[in-house]
């Protein structure tokens, strides 16, 4: 590796880092505005035109705050924890393709790299909570570790399903750019909607968004693992969380929505990053929309949901895909028919799951409807 290529990589990483920061600013502002509109409010509107400088103002305020560290806390680990949380998420940016030619590191096992790095995000949370030497923080980090570990499985299994499908089109199915190219004809969300739903649930849980945000439930443990951090150190956690959100959304667009594909994207290559960004934006908006009306799940309900519902369904998803592909290859059925069969089976299982999840609710509501007409 020559000096110039090394310096080029440094420059690119620097640009990516700044993009991440600006992106986080934009996403936080967008979240506040979108949530406000979903609640018939206005959201930030005074700092800067239409309030776009609101996050900057918050960041400046955080920087100006006093940096408090609990006396009994472990100094080194306390200061290291925000970095340990942020770094794995940012390392994922190395393999995400911006368009058909631009990717920092075009490795053939991109998906495996993603799965491995996601596992590291647990370490930072545990370090943060443990080093704070506070009961609330310890509780928060314990909950968060359990949640992150449990919900990695559906995430990785559904990504694995995507890899299996991409096998139809290329020899290196785990390369993220190849996965995008495999979706030229039809995005994978239409082929395996069940996989998309599972990936979204896993992504929401990994980034600790509602309905899975028990790790920093304001109402009970006031901040969870980050309760002892003040000022810009706490700001770093927010940065890490929203970078994670952006990363997961980009991954979801790449794996399921067709990445940088779109009308005229092959000829006009400058459209490709725009398509990717708009699909990412769509997923991020979906996350905001899910946040507004839904309550959060309790920790044991969360774990029960993961291990008793989501993980078996992710295995079911894999079984559907692999058996369809295998029988398709054996019987010589064309690829499109195989994909159609997978889609059909996915939708049927989604409907069945939806029916069974709502059973308790229906029982309680029927009780009331019988008494009061429609409540």
């Amino acid at each position, binding site marked *: 590796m020559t000096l110039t290529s090394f310096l080029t990589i440094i420059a690119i990483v620097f640009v990516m880092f700044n993009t991440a920061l600006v992106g986080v600013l934009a996403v936080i502002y967008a979240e506040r505005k979108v949530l406000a509109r979903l609640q*018939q409010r206005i959201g930030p509107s005074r700092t800067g035109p239409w309030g776009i400088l609101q996050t900057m103002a918050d960041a400046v305020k955080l920087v100006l705050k006093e940096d408090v560290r609990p006396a009994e806390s472990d100094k080194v680990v306390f200061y290291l924890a925000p970095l340990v949380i942020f770094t794995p998420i940012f390392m994922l940016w190395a393999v995400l393709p911006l368009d058909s030619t631009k990717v920092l590191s075009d490795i053939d096992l991109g998906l495996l790299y993603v799965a491995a790095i996601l596992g590291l995000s647990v370490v930072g949370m545990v370090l943060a909570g443990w080093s704070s030497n506070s009961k609330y923080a310890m509780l928060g980090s314990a909950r968060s570790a359990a949640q992150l570990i449990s919900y990695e499985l559906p995430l990785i299994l559904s990504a694995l399903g995507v890899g299996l499908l991409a096998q139809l089109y290329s020899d290196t199915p785990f390369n993220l750019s190849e996965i995008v190219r495999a979706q030229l004809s039809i995005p994978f969300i239409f082929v395996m909607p069940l996989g998309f739903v599972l990936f979204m649930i896993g992504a929401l849980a990994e980034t600790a968004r509602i309905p899975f945000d028990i790790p920093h439930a304001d*109402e009970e443990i006031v901040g969870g693992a980050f309760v002892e951090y003040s000022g810009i150190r706490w700001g770093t956690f927010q940065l890490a969380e929203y970078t994670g959100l952006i990363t997961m959304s980009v991954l979801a667009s790449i794996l399921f929505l067709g990445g940088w594909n779109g009308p005229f994207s092959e000829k006009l290559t400058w459209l490709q990053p725009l398509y990717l960004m708009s699909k990412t934006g769509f997923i991020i908006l979906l996350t905001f929309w899910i946040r507004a009306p839904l*309550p959060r799940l309790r920790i044991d309900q969360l774990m029960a949901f993961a291990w008793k519902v989501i993980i078996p369904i992710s295995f079911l998803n894999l079984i559907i895909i692999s058996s369809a592909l295998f029988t398709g290859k054996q019987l010589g059925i064309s690829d499109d028919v195989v994909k159609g069969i997978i889609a059909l089976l996915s939708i049927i299982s989604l409907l069945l799951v939806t029916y069974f999840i709502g059973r308790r609710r229906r029982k309680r509501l029927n009780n009331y409807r019988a008494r009061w007409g429609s409540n």
Partner: protein
Amino acid sequence: METKAEVVKSANPDMAELRINMGPQHPATHGVFRMVLGLDGERIISVEPHIGYLHRGSEKLSEGENFQQITTLFDRLDYVSNFNNEWVYVRVVEKAMEIELPERAEYIRVILAELNRIASHFLFYGTYGLDTGAMNPSMVGFRERERIQEVFEAVSGARMMHNYFRVGGVKEDLPDGFVPAVGNLLDHLKRGYDDARDTLTESEIFIERTADIGKLSAEETLDYGVTGPILRAAGVDYDIRKADPYSIYPELDFQIPLGSHGDCYDRYMVRMLEIEQSIRIVEQAISRLPDGPIQSKVPRIMRPPEGDFYVHGENPRGDLGVYLVSKGGTVRPYRLKIRGPSFSNLMALSSMLENVYLADATVILGSLDIVLGEVDR
């Protein structure tokens, strides 16, 4: 009898109980209320509630104020449902002095008190949504409450601390355009109620969080002296408006929602259905509002005769009772005792919090719907 904490500790003698202080400043305790929880992992094994952070000496202050001035104290008791508090107080003085009210005053009182009940239940809805983690319910709840408070401002001049009910009637007549304004308000409230119902009531996650949590059987509620929606959620058919009716309630047609399981979801449902019923009551009262005077002849300086008088009324939180001891001929009461419903409801907390998760503590406390102004007075 051994408490659960003692049982657990005697079973594992070298276990350290994790003590967490859900302190007076906490986003989830509805007001300044402190709970010292003993946790075993995520399960609560002991709870020590501490109250008194909002004690303002209302009962003692009322011994130094004239009967006309005490209404201002009662506004601030349960600061969310002001008209209901004022109503119970003026009823006890009217009972002592044997004053009868003109009909228009009774109707005005019922309309305003029921609107206040709707406002209080919407506040419960908003804060309960926040307790379980949803953000939209709080906005919906407070939006509807703002609409109601605008009507209150037009009638009494203040959005919350009205000081509008007087012994013998109300302070001044309703403003022009009140009836169409209330009709308009009720339409908005029905739509807001639909929004509220669609957001939380049927949500699976909400039902998971609140169903079968914090159960209180009917005998337990009666033992603890719990009243209000919690009692009705446990299945006991007791509402003072039907059991011991006052004012014009016998002439109005409404139902009392009853639960069956006695858990948090039932309490939530009872309050939601009570909003519906209160809308019905207000509609009936508005359509039958008679003309006439709004205050009966009452002396400027009131001196109730000697005796003990007790009156209770159905507040949104339960059974608010006021006990007046009068020595006869004085302008100030000798003793005014307030039976706060939230105080009695809070007594059932320790039994409900046995062996539940920490996350459920917030949900159960929210379902009790306490207001610290009433607990501490």
